[in-house]
């Protein structure tokens, strides 16, 4: 394992170190005193594991293709931007636009997340992205979603709604599992509510188990509450919008 | 005097230059003889000279040669110059009555230093400060035009044949280690003394034969670095390009000239590394400074003179050497008339600078 003290380090230097280490075959890197350095794990490949202490900057794990990043505190915006494979685990809360255009890999956030999480997430064949949020989400959860799986647990939630307005607006692929319910008026026009079937349950329980393993939560307690499933009404939501 | 003649005026010409490498000063008779021989290359609408080493008594002062329309303009100018400089000495530039020289402006020179504290106020280097003030006077003070502004040098120019201009300014009375001169053949009659060559800035002086076809972009390139093209002549552009590349960007002379007249891409591609990389960078970074079209120029400065041709040699240039003297001129005859038996005579190659420098350690 290699430890890097990131105090006062410029992101370009820090990321250069990480890439050099990974290229040399280092499997485990620990970053201490991270504070705002952007692009950590950007386009990083392979099976390296990075532990981050401190607050990583925006676009953590952007274009990432394989590695695992564990953030032992809060994360900022843009985690997993256009990520291809790998895993990001955030022990605290995270910001807006998490998993934008993500195509594969997994993101687990223990706390709440901001706006437009999972926007335009898409899957292709066996490349399926997963996002599991322990807390609540703000507006436009899963906007434009074109594929993949999102789970919203709302565990830490008080009385506030589990997700904001416009959930799944423009959704035309993929699926969301929400623990609890969302009033219809907060759903996007293109989304419908469904009951979970056996396949859904299998997928969900696998993800929740993984979530519990990362954060040490009680699986049964989480699963005790009823989930709803959100899916797009059509893969072609705008087919009738045009005249030629 | 209408100095902002907003049209760009093309012109053809004759040029000649003499350098003594040891810094030995000679009077103006030789250079006059040389340029007079090429009389037919000019048409009487402009002639001029630059002379270096002529003001040893004031050599630490910027020597402003100024063309002034009338007393009112003189007041305006003097008021400005006193505000921005400390004037050590000023005087009328001595002239003689000469047939064929008409309506000269008031000609005066001012030996100045940059006033105390001015630089801190402006937060710039001394020379940039001088450049700024010269540009200000030339664009904003009506009726006054600084025609040269270097130390221990001066430009003498006007409307007329160069040999007449020389008589008018009594150039036989000056001693210089470097002389350049110019006879002009403009394609219209601007009738303005400031439009003659040399064009100068600080101690840069340029005499030029030909036309810079890339004038439009060279001008816009320089404007990006704060230069103001007042005269709308391509020669002015050359002086400013040297100032930018050599003085401000600190490029060695051979690299600056490589930016102005670079090798062709096919030749760059054939160079070995690291040269290829260097020349590729010069061309791609200094594309706006490339001077295209027919030209041969003589650039004078305190340290010597540079002759340069365009990349495909569309204007003539001959160089020669004898002892400590170096000569460059549009025609070989222009050299032979003052140095019948040079040790070496050659035609510089297109785009390759001919550089004559004072010997190291020469005291001026």
């Amino acid at each position: 394992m290699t430890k890097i003290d990131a105090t006062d380090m410029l992101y370009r230097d820090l990321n250069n170190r990480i890439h050099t280490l990974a290229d040399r075959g280092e499997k485990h890197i620990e970053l201490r005193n991270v504070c705002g350095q952007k692009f950590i794990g950007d386009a990083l490949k392979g099976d390296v594991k990075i532990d981050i202490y401190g607050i990583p900057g925006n676009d953590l794990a952007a274009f990432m293709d394989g590695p695992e990043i564990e953030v032992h505190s809060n994360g900022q915006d843009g985690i997993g931007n256009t990520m291809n494979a790998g895993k990001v685990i955030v022990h605290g809360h995270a910001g807006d636009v998490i998993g934008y255009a993500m195509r594969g890999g997994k993101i687990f956030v223990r706390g709440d997340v901001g706006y437009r999480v999972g926007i335009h997430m898409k899957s292709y064949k066996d490349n399926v992205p997963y996002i599991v949020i322990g807390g609540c989400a703000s507006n436009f959860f899963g906007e434009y979603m074109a594929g993949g799986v999102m789970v919203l647990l709302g565990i830490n939630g008080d009385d506030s709604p589990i997700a904001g307005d416009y959930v799944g607006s423009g959704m035309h692929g993929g699926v969301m599992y929400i623990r609890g319910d969302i009033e219809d008026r907060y759903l996007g026009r293109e989304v419908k509510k469904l009951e979970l079937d056996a396949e859904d349950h299998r997928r969900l329980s696998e993800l929740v188990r993984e979530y519990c393993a990362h954060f040490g939560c009680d699986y049964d307690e989480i699963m005790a509450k009823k989930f709803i499933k959100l899916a797009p009404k059509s893969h072609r939501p705008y087919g009738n919008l045009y005249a030629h | 005097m209408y100095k902002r003649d907003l049209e760009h005026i093309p012109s053809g010409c004759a040029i000649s230059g003499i350098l003594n490498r040891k810094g030995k000063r000679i009077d103006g008779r030789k250079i006059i003889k040389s340029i007079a021989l090429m009389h037919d290359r000019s048409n009487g609408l402009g002639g001029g000279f630059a002379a270096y080493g002529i003001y040893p008594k004031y050599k630490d002062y910027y020597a402003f040669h100024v063309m002034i329309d009338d007393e009112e303009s003189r007041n305006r100018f003097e008021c400005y110059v006193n505000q921005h400089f400390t004037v050590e000495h000023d005087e009328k530039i001595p002239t003689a009555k000469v047939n064929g020289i008409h309506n000269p402006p008031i000609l005066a020179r001012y030996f100045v230093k940059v006033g105390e504290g001015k630089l801190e106020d402006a937060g710039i280097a001394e020379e940039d400060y001088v450049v700024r003030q010269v540009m200000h006077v030339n664009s904003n003070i009506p009726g006054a035009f600084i025609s040269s502004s270097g130390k221990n040098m001066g430009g003498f120019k006007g409307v007329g044949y160069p040999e007449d201009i020389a008589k008018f300014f009594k150039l036989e009375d000056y001693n210089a280690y470097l002389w350049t001169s110019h006879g002009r053949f403009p394609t219209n009659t601007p009738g303005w003394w400031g439009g003659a060559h040399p064009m100068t800035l600080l101690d840069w002086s340029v005499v030029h034969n030909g036309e810079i076809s890339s004038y439009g972009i060279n001008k816009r390139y320089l404007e990006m670095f704060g230069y103001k093209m007042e005269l709308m002549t391509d020669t002015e552009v050359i002086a400013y390009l040297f100032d930018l590349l050599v003085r401000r960007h600190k490029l060695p002379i051979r690299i600056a000239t490589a930016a102005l007249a670079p090798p062709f891409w096919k030749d760059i591609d054939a160079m070995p590394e690291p040269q290829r990389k260097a020349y590729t960078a010069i061309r791609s970074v200094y594309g706006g400074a490339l001077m295209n079209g027919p030209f041969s120029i003589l650039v004078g400065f305190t340290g010597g003179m540079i002759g340069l041709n365009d990349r495909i040699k569309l204007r003539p240039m001959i160089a020669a050497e004898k002892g400590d003297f170096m000569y460059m001129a549009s025609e070989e005859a222009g050299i032979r008339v003052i140095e019948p038996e040079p040790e070496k005579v050659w035609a510089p190659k297109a785009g390759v600078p001919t550089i004559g420098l004072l010997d190291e350690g020469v005291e001026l």
Partner: protein
Amino acid sequence: MSTPGVMATQVPPEFTVEINERKCVRCKRCTTECGFEALTYSREYDAIVADDAKCVACHRCVTMCPKHAIRVTDNSLAYKANANFSDIHRKNILKQAETGGILLTAMGCDRDYPVLWDHILIDACQVTNPSIDPLREPMELRTYIGRKPDCLEFDPDSDPLKLKTELAPNLKLDVPVVFGGMSYGSVSYPVHKSLMLAAERCGTFMNTGEGGLHRDFYRHKDHVIVQCASGRFGVHEEYLNAGAAIEIKIGQGAKPGIGGHLPGEKVSEDVSKTRMIPAGTDALSPAPHHDIYSIEDLSQLIYALKEATRYRKPVGVKVAAVHNIAAICSGIVRAGADYISIDGFRGGTGAAPRVIRDNVGIPIELALAAVDDRLRQEGIRNQTSLICGGGIRQSSDVIKAIALGADAVMIGTSALVALGCRVCQKCNTGKCSWGIATQNPRLTARLDPEEGAQRLTNLLNAWSHETQEVLGALGVNAIESLRGSRERLRGVGLDEKTLEILGIKPAGR
């Protein structure tokens, strides 16, 4: 919005197809050539019968008919004259009354806004400086695209010459024309392949557009610019490193400010593989990049991409020419873009709402002049290169654009026309008879990439020669002496303000 029912249309056919029965030998070729199925063979009459309503004037049948038996003409119905309500307005209203839909169209704006290129004239040398003969003297077009320092530093003691300044990566263009972004999906595989081969042969670049890069083409990487747009289709680490440069697409001239929408019909198996989305689904590109809501976010994406490619490639930004383009571009340069592609409002598209295409944005001529001026005023022109496009139709447009200040131009429509496109504006239907804007394998098979590459190479060679001719007439032998040299342009029939913005004098001055 409620979904309207299907109504019979009152809009008359736009064209009339006439088949000369005496010339026709009933080979029936035209019936298969038409991608829009406008022609059928009638056994009853032993004749070719045209459904005029389906004809789009793509001329495929006209070109392929061995007997030159087909004529397509305007169906010029008389409409009661009305300077206000043109027939086009009336037809559009009818269409919308029948469908309730947004009018969708393709290619660039076809309204007759003034084309400023056609009001600009180029200088030439006479006497005072010589013109140069481009056939026998060197005439250099090479151009470098990317960030450049303001000045260079050299090792003073080194002979040979050694550079000290570290240079940012640049793209080398042998001809100042690149192929603009056209996505695989909106255009066909053979189009991408033709562009790629031609770019390679001409020493220039093709741009993937926003739909990813087909695996087959990864080996052409030295001549490819990969685009990263809001939909992030086919964008991953390998893709980003598969090009010589990366272009962030913010907008496109034909539809500034709105997203993209590739209809499911065009998402074939292969397109789906390249875009990495399931076949048959609509490929929606969001209007903005959702990681860019402000200029500092753009900077973040630029540097995310630079980090992803370890600073080995230039990262450019493509924007549509909109009103405030000068200030926008200044911000883009400061955000770290190594080049900017500015797409004027006449730029093409595979599909766009007509209301946007024909009414939003500004002409490239003015945008380019304003941007070049602004960047020079701010002293940051060297930090970026400008590629401009949106209605470049001929070499003189290229020359004028470069003289106004562009480093290079991009062409899309012109490249497609070279491949056979007749600008029928039906790309959005996916039925293109020329195999260009379609994914139907029966149609795409018509475009031979080898021949396509040759046609494109010929076009660029012809434009290069013409550009050299003009440089020679201007008496300069390197393109950098033309670039930004507005002194060599004059305007005719332009008002004072327009001349001022273009930074050129009126002819006669």
